[in-house]
């Protein structure tokens, strides 16, 4: 093969995960080739609503996302773009259990210096005049949260990456992973072979198929997700700087978009997809919800409860896409124990956009240094490796779908676990 097709790291997939890692790696001088089956950011990234909420149930995860937002702001300077819109965000509680959850989150957040506090229901009503608040018992507010357009984030990663020498080839599906004596050598496409000692699988929903190319198992599943976007309605104006809202009891989240409102739902019984059965030229941006989709009906019903002016007659578009879930809703980031040089970077459920800045940094550290400045024990790629119940596709899918179905529903018990030092 030609010299041109050799690199230090080959990344499969030009979504936010692949592109963020490519940018970080190139920033440290690595030669990186990104191979993308379709167009840049046309997987889950192209479907995402773009909410950037930093608050997580665990302190070290929250810290990571706080650092991630700092990386986004740095990126804005490097790429000379303005993409992050700071709106603040709310979590609301309608039951005593949810109120407890919020109190614990506020305590956890404060303990690590994250800007968060309770907000009175009257203040919530003032912030969001278009939202029903009479059934709320508590709320908390994170002023530094916000949102961005995922396409713009992907473009910014790529722009800076290219300045640093990243090569990105689109319309180039990886069809084989070359492994010799337990060590990765490169990848194969229809037209060529590419060589590198490290291959990173950032294939989003397709990641488990990519793992199969190397005859290994990655326990992720492709799970459907829906959100609606209302058209601007002069009778119910939505300020473009209105805070995002997360209502876990109703399983919905929302943010302003184009003068209307985005409302997304974590379904109790989400759609499942068999990525291997989709046509080779499957284009996620062409996915469409049926007019009598049960999921959409549930989404509209939950939305109507919280925003009574929205119902099935409200002019809206429905976006549906595919997320990548894992059995515990935490991603897989790191090297596989059985194949040297094969790294996974996948399984970001509904939070791959917000996680991508810091994940890119972490992956670059794991690949170049063999360890990270962050505590990555909860996201290691091999945490289910060879475990019974995590090998068969059906089992994996059931576990991931169950996790997805429980995702917003279950009440969190925030922990202020030790460890997890922030970088710097």
């Amino acid at each position, binding site marked *: 093969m030609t010299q041109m097709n050799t690199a230090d790291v080959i990344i499969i997939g030009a979504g936010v995960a692949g592109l963020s890692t490519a940018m970080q790696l190139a920033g440290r001088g690595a030669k990186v080739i990104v191979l993308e089956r379709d*167009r840049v*950011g*046309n997987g889950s990234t192209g479907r995402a609503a773009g909410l950037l909420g930093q608050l997580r149930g665990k302190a070290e995860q929250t810290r990571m996302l706080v650092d991630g937002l700092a990386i986004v702001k740095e990126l804005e300077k490097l790429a000379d773009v303005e993409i992050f819109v700071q709106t603040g965000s709310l979590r609301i509680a309608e039951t005593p259990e949810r109120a407890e959850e919020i109190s614990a989150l506020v305590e956890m957040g404060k303990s690590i210096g994250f800007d968060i506090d309770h907000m009175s229901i009257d203040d919530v009503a003032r912030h969001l005049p278009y939202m029903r608040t009479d059934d709320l018992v508590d709320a908390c507010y994170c002023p530094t949260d916000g949102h961005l*357009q995922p396409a713009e984030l992907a473009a910014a990663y*790529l*722009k800076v990456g290219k300045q640093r020498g990243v090569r990105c080839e689109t319309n180039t599906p990886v069809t084989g992973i070359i492994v010799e004596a337990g060590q990765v050598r490169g990848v194969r496409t229809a037209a060529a072979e590419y060589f590198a000692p490290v291959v990173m699988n950032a294939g989003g929903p397709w990641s488990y198929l990519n793992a199969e190319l190397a005859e290994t198992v990655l326990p992720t599943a492709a799970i459907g997700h829906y959100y609606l976007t209302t058209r601007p309605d002069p009778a119910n104006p939505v300020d473009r700087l209105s805070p995002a809202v997360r209502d876990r009891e109703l399983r919905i989240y929302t943010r302003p978009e*184009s*003068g209307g409102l985005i409302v997304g739902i974590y379904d109790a019984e989400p759609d499942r997809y068999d990525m291997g059965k989709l046509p080779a030229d499957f284009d996620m941006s062409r996915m469409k919800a049926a007019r009598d989709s049960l999921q959409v009906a549930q989404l509209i019903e939950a939305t109507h409860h919280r925003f009574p002016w929205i119902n099935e007659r409200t002019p809206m578009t429905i*976006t549906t896409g595919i997320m990548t879930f894992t059995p515990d809703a935490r991603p897989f980031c790191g090297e596989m124990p059985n194949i040297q040089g094969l790294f996974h970077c996948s399984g970001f459920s509904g939070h791959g956009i917000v996680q991508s800045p810091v994940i890119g940094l972490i992956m670059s550290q794991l690949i170049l240094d063999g360890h990270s400045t962050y505590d990555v024990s909860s996201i290691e790629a091999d945490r289910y490796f060879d475990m019974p119940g995590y090998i068969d596709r059906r089992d994996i899918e059931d576990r991931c779908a169950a996790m997805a179905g429980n995702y917003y529903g279950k009440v969190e018990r925030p922990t202020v676990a030790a460890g997890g030092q922030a970088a710097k």
Partner: protein
Amino acid sequence: MKVLVIAEHDGKSLRAASLSCLTFAQQVAQATEGTVSWLVLGSQATGVAAEAAKFAPVLLVESSRLARPMADSCAAAIANVAKNHNVNLIAAASTSFSKDVLPRAAALLGGAMASDIVRHEVTAEGLLFDSPQYAGAVTATVQLLGSPQVVSVRSSAYPAATPAAAPFGIEAIAMEDATLASRCEFVELKTKQNSRPDVTEARIVVSGGRALRNSADFEGLVGKLADVMGGAAGSSRALVDAGIAPNELQVGQTGKIVAPELYVALGISGAVQHLAGMKNSRTIVAINSDPDAPIFDVADLGLVGDVYEVVPQLIERLQSR
């Protein structure tokens, strides 16, 4: 074959599209050793008939009942003439007028109709037509069974006919009022001659993206280019969000879905949500200063350049044409 071409006019002059349709009819007539004539319907249409006669013989039905071209009366008139004159093929340019009237006339004549044809072929088995389907993704070659055959013709597929050396004759046809009665009552026509067309209606859409720095630049570059091209102005979400372009101009997933003949993207990166609104456009032109912008992947023609330099040049060249 005896071919009848329905002349579309505004009471004063023929519409250009009808002249392209006449070319189609002349080609068929020539290949089948047949004849072509116009059918002019109207209330005071002698002027139009005279203009049409420069190109082909005219059959003229004049009646006060045809002052407004209502589908039921026009279809009845067409069917009546077709039967009495043993017409084999009826054609009209594919316009909102003929899309309304022609199928109704076809139904009165047995229902053999092909829509929006872009090509024809005279074979031993008869006429074959190419008709685009699936929003243009597929072209079907079809044959009509039964007579007369009725076709609407996409005018861009045929050049305009040229006038003959001497005018042809005009034959007035008398038709009973009862035949021409319409149960539809015309109330009004709201034309929007002077304002820019709506993005979803226009043949040409010129859209601006974040490259445009303020409303004045948007109007001066995007709006102006739209005007000289005779099209609509559109925008990406970025400009709507920044308050530079009004909401109703937004093209994309949460904005308008458009499929014009020409879509010009000025300083738009080509995010999937934007592409969702315009990817079915016939021809896409992108002007962007970033040679790697994803919009270039979907564009038929891309020009790498600064919109602030390129667009004024385009406007100037187009104005001096």
